[in-house]
């Protein structure tokens, strides 16, 4: 009896597994067919290239690394290995695979499963390429322009320059920022108007008005006119549009499920459009992108329902692999290829400078305090205790500010938010209030201004010291504002 039930279960599982894998494939970009997965279990060589491509696509999307998009397959394989290693992938077998994609599909399958097990991968990928219908504004500083951990910019092989060239570049930068600010103000004014004028049009009550994307969709659903308005070679393209329209008349309407006369002009967009012209494909893309995202979302939901069977299967795959010989650990004294030493420089330097300054300050204050503390009564020790506790708590709170989870922890809003115009004074629906974000930004601004001022003060003092060492000169600082 038990055996029959087990057989029935196995039969179920046998059907459920391909479906689960198919759902997984559909939910990932460049997902290979379930057949590839099956072959990979048996380490068939023909399954390897598809898995290399998939891993490359997934990892480059995760790291938002667009630069590596157009590499040769061997270079892609190397990149994948390095990226997996950076994430902490444990198996050495991957490192030993040849990069021409001729073998190693089982190892690649294990790598994919490892990535899937660690985090909700399909959801994360979808969230990154999510179709944004609204006017988005980021509220966190995750995508800051000059993050300290950034890789060094590419150095040109130019000659030595004069310091005046640097001054000129700085001035140019200031000018560009001013332009940027002016343009941004204009854009906000226009956005405000568009939101105000389209009030009441959106089906979704919590939004209330249309965004630029949606309004653009209404203005120009076929995208045909985008050609003339947006493109540089507008006239020629429009000419070809005219020519393209005519043969299409009277033909059978392509079944795109979208009612309306978008059809004919839709095909003529296809004739003349190029993917590099985003405005051209705009309206078509929006609906199509929404639909494909919906399909992928459904695939993800199905995957989540069925994935248990996949993990049971992966256990068997892992079991089929021979265990790896453990790498002999190298003695820590060995001076390895410390390539990352460059990135440590600034942080270590700053921390050390800070430590020296603190040492000096503490020393001075301790001395002053020791001189001050004479005979203090019994209430002194109680007061001291209280002070110590208070300071301890304050410092613990300070530590939290950079600890895991970032400032404020999970509660801090992240990511781009859709701008929604509401009536002033109204309670509003769920959502972040602009006033809060403004407050947070102001405090951050004050913080940064203070940091900058301190750095400049440091430089001033150092230069003043140098000036002091050069006699016979009078240094007149510029008037403070």
């Amino acid at each position, binding site marked *: 009896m038990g055996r029959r039930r087990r057989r029935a279960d196995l039969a179920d599982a046998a059907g459920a597994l391909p479906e689960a894998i198919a759902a997984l494939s559909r939910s990932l970009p460049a997902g290979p067919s379930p057949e590839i997965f099956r072959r990979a279990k048996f380490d068939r060589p023909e399954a390897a290239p598809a898995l290399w491509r998939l891993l490359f696509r997934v990892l480059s999307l995760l790291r938002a690394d667009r630069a590596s998009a157009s590499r040769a397959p061997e270079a892609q394989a190397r990149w994948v290995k390095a990226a997996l290693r950076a994430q902490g992938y444990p198996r050495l077998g991957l490192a030993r695979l040849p990069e021409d994609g001729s073998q190693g599909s089982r190892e690649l399958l294990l790598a994919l499963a490892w990535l899937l097990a660690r985090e909700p991968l399909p959801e994360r990928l979808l969230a990154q390429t999510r179709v944004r219908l609204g006017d988005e504004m980021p509220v966190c500083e995750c995508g800051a322009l000059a993050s300290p951990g950034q890789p060094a910019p590419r150095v040109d092989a130019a000659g030595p320059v004069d310091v005046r060239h640097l001054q000129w570049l700085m001035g140019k930068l200031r000018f560009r920022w001013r332009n940027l600010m002016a343009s941004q103000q204009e854009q906000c004014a226009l956005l*405000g108007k568009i939101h105000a004028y389209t009030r009441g049009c959106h089906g979704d009550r919590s939004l209330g008005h249309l965004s630029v994307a949606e309004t653009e969709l209404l203005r120009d659903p076929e995208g045909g006119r985008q050609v003339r308005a947006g493109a540089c070679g507008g006239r020629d393209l429009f000419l070809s549009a005219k020519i393209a329209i005519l043969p299409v008349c009277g033909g059978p309407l392509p079944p795109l499920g979208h009612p*309306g006369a978008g059809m004919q*002009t839709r095909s003529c967009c296809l004739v003349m459009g190029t993917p590099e012209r985003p405005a051209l494909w705009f309206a078509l893309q929006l609906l199509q992108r*929404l639909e494909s995202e919906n399909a992928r979302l459904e695939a993800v939901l199905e995957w989540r329902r069925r994935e248990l069977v996949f*993990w049971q299967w992966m256990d068997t795959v892992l079991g089929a692999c021979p265990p790896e010989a453990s790498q002999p650990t190298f003695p820590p004294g060995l001076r390895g290829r410390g390539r990352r030493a460059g990135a440590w420089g600034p942080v270590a330097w*700053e921390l050390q400078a800070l430590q020296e300054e603190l040492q000096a300050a503490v020393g001075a204050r301790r001395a002053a305090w020791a001189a001050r503390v004479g005979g203090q009564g019994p209430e002194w020790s109680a007061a001291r205790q209280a002070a110590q506790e208070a300071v301890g708590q304050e410092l613990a709170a*300070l530590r939290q500010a950079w600890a895991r989870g970032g400032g404020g922890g999970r509660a801090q809003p992240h990511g781009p938010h859709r701008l929604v115009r509401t009536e002033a004074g109204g309670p509003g629906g769920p959502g972040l209030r602009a006033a809060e974000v403004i407050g947070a930004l102001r405090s951050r601004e004050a913080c940064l201004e203070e940091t900058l001022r301190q750095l400049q003060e440091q430089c001033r003092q150092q230069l003043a010291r140098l*000036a002091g060492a050069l006699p016979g000169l009078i*240094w007149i600082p510029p008037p403070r504002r």
Partner: protein
Amino acid sequence: MLPLGCSRRLVAELRDALDTCAERQRQLEQSLRVSRRLLRAWEPAETPTPEPTPGPETNEEAPSPACTPSPQDLKELELLTQALQKAVHVRKGVSKAGERDKASSLKSGSIATSATTAAAPHGASPTKPPRGTRQATRPAKGLPKPRLLSAGDQTCAGRGPLAAKPGPGLRDPQIAPSAAPQAPEAFTLKEKGTLLQLPVAFRKAASQNSCLWAQLSSTQTSDSMDATTSSKTQFLQKMQVTSGWPSSRLSAAEVEAEVGRLQKACSLLRLRMEEELTRDPTDWMQEYRGLLTLEGLQAIVGQCLHRLRELQAEVVEQQLGPWPEERPPMASLPCGGGADPTWSPQLLLYSSTQELQTLAALRLRVDMLDQQIHLEKVLMAELLPLVSMQEPLGAPQLALCRAVHSLLCEGGQRFLTILRDEPAD
């Protein structure tokens, strides 16, 4: 002249900053173009070739007396008209209400262009208006219009470019004087924006989209995933156990993240220190607290340094092994919202244009300050050694001092003056 290495590095940094700024400007201008276009009158019948006589009146009974069309042109026009009428019939048969306005006006616009002149085939003209109005009134009969709702537009049926029906003969008089923006029937967002309605298919897709995302976030947080989660953890453990690499190491990604945190710690600690140092204690209690704070900060900095050295040692060890040397540059991680990203739509509510502008301006200012601080540190690291190391008092060295001072201390905006103190003989 600055030394070669120093020059190259500094120029590279500054150019990088300039490029990021330029990229941002480019994106902003693209959005500006789109927004400006939306706020202008929407011009469905605009033609690329400027009309020779833009008459101000939009009088449909007066076909502009341009040159008479050649018979070939007329024949072409007839063919096109027929083709279009067929298309319209087919389309009307399939869809209830369509983008007739736009598509047909686009076609008519193009046809008018190919005819170049505005002369209508007179024979066609009288028959067009009735058809035009007939077809125009049909959509008004309560069929869901994906575009314009106002029945008021139907009055413009015979005239305006908007509700124009396939009647090139009818259209031409309008095309001729169509400096379309001036036509009072042209659609502007300001006047008729509230009448817009999104197309049905789009709305369906969008609502399905948000529904699916909501489902996704609910499955994320549901507890029914226990079996799956445990099998995943088991799998990961088994992977680790059967692999050849000891598990106690931190991955490079984690190390980078921790270094980033230490960097942030450093700036916060420094700020706190400066705050404490500039504070003037009024009584002994405050003085004591200040002392304790500084000592506490010192201890924390010591711990951070220690951790940094540990991480350094760890990374050096990890470099060994069969893994490839190439390290992909750590692209700044896209904001995933931490470990628990919310997939649901996040809204940012603002109440006035002023508020929005303040918000955007502050964002830009914060980014600019970030960049400035980064550049300041880079410049300090490169230029201060140059200034301090050279001894001679020659004019070039002094000029360098002056320039460095302005760059580092005044943001390159103001300069100090150096006077030679000549003793009066």
